[in-house]
């Protein structure tokens, strides 16, 4: 009987993704009701040192697939490794952070193991020892609860939603090698370039400052960027300004852009089209700055300021600067 949770831990260039630690922590919180053990699986070349960082997130065991064939990401190589991990521990559930690597890998392995998958989970309901994943769909206008009818099921968890739970004590658990043949690799990553522009990745940012038509033109992005710098925030944008060519699509928040769940979302000159709300209405706190008091965005905002964002934002930045200067 399959039991327990296997968590795929994503690493790139020797860095473990925070969202993977969120997934591992959530597995730890859920394991007493699910039954069995939490196993973390990490794949790469020379990643044993990294694996040593994982026990403090409370897995019962860490599996390491290490080898030259896994130095660069390839769908097929990683799929072989994850499938081997699944065979080795026979979990009931596989968790992963919902990143672009997971979007490439997890459904491939789900098809290989003939098991179902629910993506972008933001909440769990429990039914005995079964997990019922819940997630927003259709522009955030609906929340869907799913149930599985399968001995194995995959779930990807939305980044920034589940808390990281780290032990401050020295915790130990077995770290074991898993020997895996990468198999036939017909496509693989040959190089990676850091993106220009966004210093902080939108989907993982805890604060986002976004601009829409109300910023009046691309020459005014520095106004928002200064606020981002002061807050340690990532810069987002509405579809309207991306389509107008004011900024690259990688900044777009919304149904045809990125879905984000930061602690704080500051919408500057954004009216609040359904498709934008879809991408950000699970943010913890929403601040709207808009000169139209009837803008839809105010219905969704925790705090609203009616005013020209080009006047309000610099004042916000200045006040924050003073605040930070005074400690």
């Amino acid at each position, binding site marked *: 009987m399959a039991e327990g949770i296997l968590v795929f831990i994503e690493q790139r260039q020797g860095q473990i993704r925070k969202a993977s630690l969120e997934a591992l922590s959530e597995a730890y919180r859920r394991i007493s009701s699910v039954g069995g053990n939490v196993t973390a699986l990490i794949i790469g070349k020379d990643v044993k040192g990294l694996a040593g960082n994982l026990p403090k997130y409370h897995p019962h065991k860490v599996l390491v697939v290490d080898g030259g064939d896994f130095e660069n990401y390839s769908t097929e190589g990683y799929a072989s490794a994850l499938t081997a991990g699944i065979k080795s521990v026979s979990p009931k559930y596989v968790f992963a952070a919902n990143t672009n690597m997971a979007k490439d890998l997890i459904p491939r392995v789900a098809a*290989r193991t003939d098991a179902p998958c629910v993506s972008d989970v933001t909440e769990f309901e429990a039914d005995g020892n079964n997990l019922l994943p819940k997630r927003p769909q259709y522009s955030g206008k609906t929340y869907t609860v799913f149930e599985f009818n399968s001995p194995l099921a995959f779930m990807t968890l939305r980044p920034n939603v589940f808390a990281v739970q780290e032990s401050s004590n020295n915790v130990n658990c077995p770290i074991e090698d898993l020997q895996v043949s990468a198999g036939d690799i017909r496509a693989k990553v040959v190089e*990676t370039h850091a993106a220009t522009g966004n210093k902080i990745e939108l989907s993982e940012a805890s*604060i986002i400052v976004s601009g829409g038509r109300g910023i009046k033109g691309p020459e005014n992005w520095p106004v928002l960027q200064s606020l981002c710098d002061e807050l340690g925030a990532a810069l987002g944008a509405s579809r309207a300004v991306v389509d107008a060519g004011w900024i690259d699509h990688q900044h777009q928040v919304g149904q045809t852009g990125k879905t984000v769940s930061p602690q704080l979302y500051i919408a500057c000159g954004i009216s609040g089209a359904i498709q934008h709300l879809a991408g950000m209405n699970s943010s913890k706190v929403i601040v709207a700055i808009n000169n139209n008091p009837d803008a839809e965005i105010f219905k969704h905002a925790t705090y609203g300021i009616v005013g020209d964002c080009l006047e309000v934002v610099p004042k916000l930045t200045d006040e924050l600067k003073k605040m930070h200067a005074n400690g």
Partner: protein
Amino acid sequence: MKIAVCVKAVPDTDAKIAIAGDKKGIDFNGVRIITSPYDEFAIEEALKLKEKHGGETTVFSVGGAEATDVLRDSLARGIDSAVHINDDEFAGLDPLSTAKVLAAAIKDGGFDAVFCGQQGVGGDNNQVPAMLAELLNMPQATIILKLEIDGNKFKAEREIEGAHEFVEGTLPALFSTQKGLNEPRYPSIKGVMAARRKEIAVKNAEALGVKGQFNVDNRKVKVKEMALPKERPVGRKLDGDVDAQVKTLLDLLRTEARVI
């Protein structure tokens, strides 16, 4: 080159969404149906490849009557032929089942490249492309922003968090498309007229050799319940002039919301 494109009929991204009576799906009554926006990049890339390398393009869609308009839209943009995969047994299919049905329709077609939008908007699962690649035993590059094909080799640029990565591989392969890959063309009037006269091949469960496999009882994941989201607590507009509002806001963010 033989190129397949998979498209999905979805509610317009600006549509108001209501939940169906059985709480298992959405109510499509009165909702405008469109080609899923990411699929437009898949269609465009297939057309560009055909223009460059020659060959033929075929579009596939799994769905009920709503899929017909979407298939005609693909034809109007210049896709050569269309296959409508339609059976009552296929209503409300989960992603793995959808991928299996598509694979059954595509596998013997001798395709060099298969294109899918990276996700169908609405469901937003991002699952069918990678599942379909596995079932077709093809390598894949998903969420791509750029694609170059030279003989049987490809190089694709894909978007990842905070970076772009470059994937090299061999054809036949499956690609899922992201906004930024190309500028989708609109159907021409001539294209729309020609598309109206074209025949759309229809394949049901029996024709695909999967009869009974995807009955509701056999599905491995089901919707338990669809509900409206929790209402956000009613927010407040701040008072006073801009300076006062800014000060109040920072105070609230620090002491009440505790997010800065």
